[in-house]
C-alpha cells in the first residue's frame, strides 16, 4: 500500500511518527512521510498528489479533536472517500468514539506494537478486496478493536 504518515498542527513530537513510518516500510509498504507541522489542507493535498491508499495521523499535542475531524471533512470534500484513515499518539479514550464516528478506522496509543498495526492493515486490505466499506467516506461504523 501507499501510505502517507502525517503530523498535523504545531505538535513537535515526531519520534512515534518516524518509528511507525519505518515499521510500515519494513512491512512492505511505500510510506511517504510529510514531516512536522502540516495543515489539514496540506495533508489532504499530499494524499491526493501521492495517490495514497491510506493516511496515518500522529498527534500528541492534544489538538486531535480539532485537527483529525478537519482532515476527515476535507478528504470527503475532495472526493478522497476511498482513503483509509487511522491515527496514533496521545488520544484519550473518551475522545475516540467521536473520531470513529468521523470515519477514522483505528487509533493506536503509546505502547502499540508494530505487529498490531500491520495486523490492522492486513484487515484493511482484506476489506478492500471484498469491497467492504473501509475508506474515510465509505460509511459503515466498522473500526479496528485489536
Amino acid at each position, binding site marked *: 500500500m501507499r501510505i502517507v504518515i502525517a503530523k498535523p498542527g504545531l505538535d513537535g513530537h515526531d519520534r512515534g511518527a518516524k518509528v511507525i513510518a519505518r515499521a510500515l*516500510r*519494513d512491512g512492505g509498504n*511505500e*510510506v511517504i512521510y510529510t*514531516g512536522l507541522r*502540516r495543515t489539514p*489542507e496540506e495533508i489532504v493535498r499530499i494524499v*491526493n498528489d501521492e495517490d495514497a491508499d491510506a493516511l496515518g495521523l500522529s498527534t500528541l499535542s492534544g489538538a486531535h479533536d480539532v485537527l483529525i475531524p478537519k482532515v476527515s471533512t476535507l478528504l470527503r470534500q475532495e472526493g478522497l472517500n476511498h482513503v483509509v484513515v487511522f491515527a496514533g499518539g496521545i488520544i484519550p479514550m473518551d475522545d475516540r468514539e467521536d473520531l470513529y464516528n468521523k470515519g477514522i478506522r483505528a487509533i493506536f496509543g503509546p505502547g502499540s506494537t508494530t505487529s498490531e498495526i500491520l495486523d490492522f492493515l492486513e484487515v484493511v486490505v482484506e476489506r478492500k478486496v471484498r469491497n467492504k466499506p473501509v475508506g474515510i467516506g465509505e460509511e459503515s461504523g466498522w473500526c479496528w478493536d485489536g
Partner: protein
Amino acid sequence: MVDAANLLEEARQGNRRSLAKLLTYLEEGGKSPLEYGRGKSLGITGPPGVGKSSLIGKLIDEWLNLGETVAVLAVDPSSPISGGALLGDRMRMVNADSSDSVFVRSLATRNHPGGLMNCLTPMIEVLSECGWENIVIETVGSGQSETRVVAFADIVVLVDGPDRGDIIQAEKSGIIEMADLIVINKSDLKNAQKAADSIRSALSFNEESPKVFLSSAHTGEGIKEIINELKILQSPLIRNRMRVRERLISAWDSVLLESESLEILISEIEDGKISISEAIEMIRNHNKTSKS
C-alpha cells in the same frame, strides 16, 4: 479499467486528482496516452544526505517567485527485502504542499530488473503536456541502477557535500561523467570551498566539462545563480549521447532479465551443457523468432 485518455484530458484542464491517478496508472506499467514526444526534464542526483531535496525546495521557491510552475518526481530505493520504501524527500521541500503551482510525486524504484524505471519517460511527457514548466527528477546517485534513473533526464545536476568522501563515491559510480552542472551544497559549512576547488581541478579543463557552483539550502546562497545557469545550460552532444546509450543499455538489460528462458539458460550453463557464447546465440535467435 482506467481510461487514460480521459484522465489526461481532465489533468490538462488542471484536475490534480486525475493527474495523480494517471501517474499511478503509468507507474503500474499502463500504456501512455501520449505518442512519444517532447518533455524536458532536469535530473538532480548525488549521494544520500547532501541536500538534494532541500536544494530542490529552494529552487521551487525561486521558480515560484518568477511565476513559474514546478513538478517534481522524487525517486527513492525500494527495500530489496520487504519491497517497502520510505519516501521522505518531500518533507524537505517546505513550500511544496501549499502552492497550486507545485506538484510533488514520490516514487519508489520497485526493484525493476536492471534498475530500469520505464514509467519515467511517459510521466515526464504527461507532466509537460499538462503545462508543468519545470520538471525535476530527484534520484540518489550511488550505484549503477541510480545512474540509470538519471539518464532519463535531459540535463543532469550532480549535487555533492563538502566532504571529500562523498565526491569519491560519486566518481566511482560514473555519475560524474553525466553531470552538466555540479553543485557543492552546504556552503554554510566549512570545507565547501575546498571541495569545490578540488573537484574543479579533478575535472579535465575543456569546454565541455561542467561548471561547479556552491549553494546552501539553509541560507539560500547560490540559488539564484543556479536558476540563471539552468536557463541557459545546454547539454553537449557528447553527454547527450552517453545518456541515450545508458538508456538503451538499461532497456536491453531489462529485456534480458525479464526473458523467460533466462533461468533455463543459466542452469544449462551451470551444468556445463552449453557455453556462455552459445547461450548468447540462443537469446539472440529467440529474440529474432519472437519478433517475426
